[in-house]
């Protein structure tokens, strides 16, 4: 796997030689895009930051909260030096004196390992940046950039409306670059490797399969091909793209942003959860709805009230207490929550249900009176 390569500060030295402008140019040219799910061009983000005035901050988003996603953990566990080098390059290139790694609360056991790797590299390079690890407190919504900022500032982890964008006014109102772990880990690789290619991604594969784990796969690979690799136990009925990406029935389809979007889903950070025919989609939906109901930050009406009412309705449906009219109410709610929620959490919280009602509607109807 490329992501396990040891770069031994060669990339850092190269970035130093190139200087800020050329490094950012190179990143732009190679086409690195964010791996947290949004897919924003990293070079562009860095360029915005370079243009901003005054003190800047870097936040490393290691709050991998999406269910079925564990690629960032894989990197921190197996190659923390690569991430550390990526961070140092970012700090050097963007003249950042203070960086925060926002580490998911559940990953606390990895803190020491990461800290050691960083200390080592800082010592070796005599870099002047101060890199702190901040533990998340277990809120899914803190995967959102603006909520992370609030959380690090010691406030309630709640997103706010952009603009201002973090690159203009982020942490402590100062320009802030927020990058995902996998994104930063790719920086050293891209600087050194001429064959580096933005399509090579880490996929988190899990579900009713014999061989779950992190795979390095090119985007665009056919789903059927991936299915062969992971050895399903039974016939796979559906694939979920994490909890927030929605689901599709298994078919011939390329695992890339556009094809997946055509089915009404989001590939996001490439997490596939395989569900076989023994499972009920209604149960899946209820489970996921419970997750979103629990994780809503409570700020806006659609997400706060909507997710709760959706869960209640789904529970009634699973118990066989619901009518067709309830199913209608449920569907009405899903679109309302998707279109009217304030942040990405609420907006994407209904994807699973909207697609499930689209592809597996019969399963819901069968349980209704």
């Amino acid at each position, binding site marked *: 796997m490329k992501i396990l390569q040891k770069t031994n500060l060669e990339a850092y030295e190269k970035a130093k030689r190139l200087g800020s402008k050329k490094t950012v140019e190179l990143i732009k040219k190679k086409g690195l895009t964010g791996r947290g799910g949004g897919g924003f061009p990293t070079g562009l983000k860095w360029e915005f930051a370079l243009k901003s005035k005054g003190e800047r901050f870097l936040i490393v988003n290691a709050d991998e909260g999406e269910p079925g996603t564990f690629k960032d953990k894989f990197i921190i566990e197996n190659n923390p030096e690569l991430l550390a080098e990526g961070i140092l390059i970012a700090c050097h290139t963007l003249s950042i004196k203070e960086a925060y790694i926002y580490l998911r609360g559940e990953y606390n056991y990895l803190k020491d390992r990461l800290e050691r790797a960083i200390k080592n590299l800082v010592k070796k390079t005599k870099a002047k940046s101060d890199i702190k690890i901040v533990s998340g407190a277990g*809120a899914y919504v803190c995967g959102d950039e603006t909520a992370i900022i609030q959380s690090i500032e010691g406030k*309630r982890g709640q997103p*706010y*409306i952009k603009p201002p964008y973090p690159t203009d006014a982020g942490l402590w109102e100062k320009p802030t670059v927020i990058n995902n772990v996998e994104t930063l880990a790719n920086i050293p690789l891209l600087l050194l490797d001429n064959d580096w290619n933005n399509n090579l991604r880490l996929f988190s594969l899990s579900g009713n399969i014999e061989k779950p784990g992190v795979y390095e796969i090119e985007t665009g690979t056919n789903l059927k091909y991936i299915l062969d690799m992971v050895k399903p136990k039974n016939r796979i009925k559906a694939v979920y793209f994490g909890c927030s990406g929605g689901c599709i029935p298994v078919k011939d389809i390329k695992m890339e942003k556009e094809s997946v979007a055509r089915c009404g889903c989001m590939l996001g950070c490439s997490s596939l959860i395989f569900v076989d025919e023994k499972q009920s989609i209604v149960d899946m939906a209820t489970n996921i709805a419970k997750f979103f*109901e*629990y*994780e*809503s*930050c*409570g*700020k*806006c*009406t*659609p997400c*706060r*009230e*909507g*997710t*709760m*009412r959706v869960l*209640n309705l789904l529970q009634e449906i699973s118990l066989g207490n619901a009518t067709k009219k309830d199913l209608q*109410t449920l569907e*009405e*709610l899903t679109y*309302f929550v998707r*279109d*009217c*929620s*304030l942040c990405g959490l609420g907006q994407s919280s209904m994807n699973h249900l909207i697609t499930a009602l689209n592809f597996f509607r019969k399963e819901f109807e069968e349980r209704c009176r």
Partner: protein
Amino acid sequence: MQVTINNKKYRCKEGETILDAAKRNNICIPTLCYQEDFKSSARCRMCVVEADGRIVTSCSTKVCDGMNVFTETEKVLRYRKLNAELLMAQHQDSCFVGNKNHDLCKIAKDVGLREVRFKPRKDVMMDIKGSSIARHNEKCIVCGRCVKTCKELQCVHAIDFASRSHHTHVTPFFEKSLGEVLCINCGQCIINCPVEAITEKENIDDVAKVLNNPKKIVVAQTAPAIRVSLGEEFDMEPGTNVKGKMVSALKRLGFDSVFDTNTGADFTIMEEASELIERIQKGKNLPLITSCCPGWIKFAEHYYHGLLKNISSCKSPHEMLGSLIKSYYAKKINKNPRDIVVISIMPCTAKKFEAARKELKNSVDYVLTTRELAKMIKSKGIKLRDLKKSKFDDPLGISTGAAAIFGATGGVMEAALRTAADVLTGKELKKIDYKGVRGLKGIKDASIKIGNKKLRVAVVHGMGNAKRLIDSGIKKYHFIEIMACPGGCIGGGGQPIPTNNEIRQKRIDAIYKEDKSLAYRKSHKNPTLIKVYKEFLGKPLGRKSEELLHTSYVKRRLY
């Protein structure tokens, strides 16, 4: 910049929101969490519109050139209705057909909500331990207006959100009661709540009880600010002065005597102006800061211990009058003060807390807000409009224009200046309108020449403005008036809802009109007051005055 709204083109300004643009052109969009003069938090999502094919909240989305907005598409209407339905279910109150005070109910009606398909929630939380304010969290729809008001307008920070998901609720820290924290009881949260989830702690029942007790002599006194607002509760134009009808209504409710708190205000001026002159002559503890506002007093007791010595030791007007009723008046009518019950009708929730302070015994027993009085009048079926006018009772009935303007921001300052100027110059000055301290500007700063002396004064209203003024340094001033509520008492937390700047201004205008209409316009010219000093009190700041009309403050903790 040009924006198309509902197929019509409008010129728009850079940086304004879709809502601003729509409002200016009389296009109606329902809003709930949005408050003028505050940054939008966009939490309620009621104001959604379709802009360039996307659903956005109009209160937070800025217009851009060529934008195409639809405010009433089928989708938008459907979403607003569903939103109202969810909030109604959360609100747990089936009042959506009636209550005209509830913004949410108004919206529910406008969007055509007939039925709520969701069950009410079960968690009921109430906070009624404080003496001024009660919170009914089961009705709260977490719109955050109270939180923003408390934080940004008042800078008090008594409440915030806790928990998450649908458990999110508004609370003082650690689920304490408002009565246990640094809440200053100003009640601005009440004025801003769209669903009456926060209200005054009602004393209607207590008052009804004493009114029914034949052994008690029940005396009412009414604040300067309520005569110009009470009418609003009875569908009259804001700024209608209902003084005479109000007195009649109180008599009908069974009060034995009705006095005017304005008379108390004249005493306050006599004492406070004397204090000001004394401090200026001695050059000690300047600036003098007013003490009529119990919200401000508690704010200082929590946040500004260093300023307590600057605050005038004068009791607030209704407490002065309360003391005089239980001493001077009791003697006059030959009654035991213990058989007299004094009820103050105030525009203010903080006065409830004030009346319960242990430093202020033997004066006011209960405080009712303007809204509570209206409720009592309505519940007795009294039609305020149709009542004949009556006069306040003697011997504490006459008051001056100086007292009348206590109800508006800048009023106490102006009243004090009218008296202080006469005393300092030894003349009877004709020019008594101090326009520089009037009006709704947040911080008013003026230099005033009295004889050969120059006084630097400041007037602030709204706790946030007070904080900004104090933090910017106040050594340069001689006298500062501070009121916790925007607009002064006419914008108090106990006033009719809605209270907004337009309505505030109308109430203020009515008050200055009353000032102009009165025979006496300087406190020290009030014949009642002259008589009471002569017969009973002696002189301002004398021993008896100190005992009956002055008080002290305590240091309180932040948490």
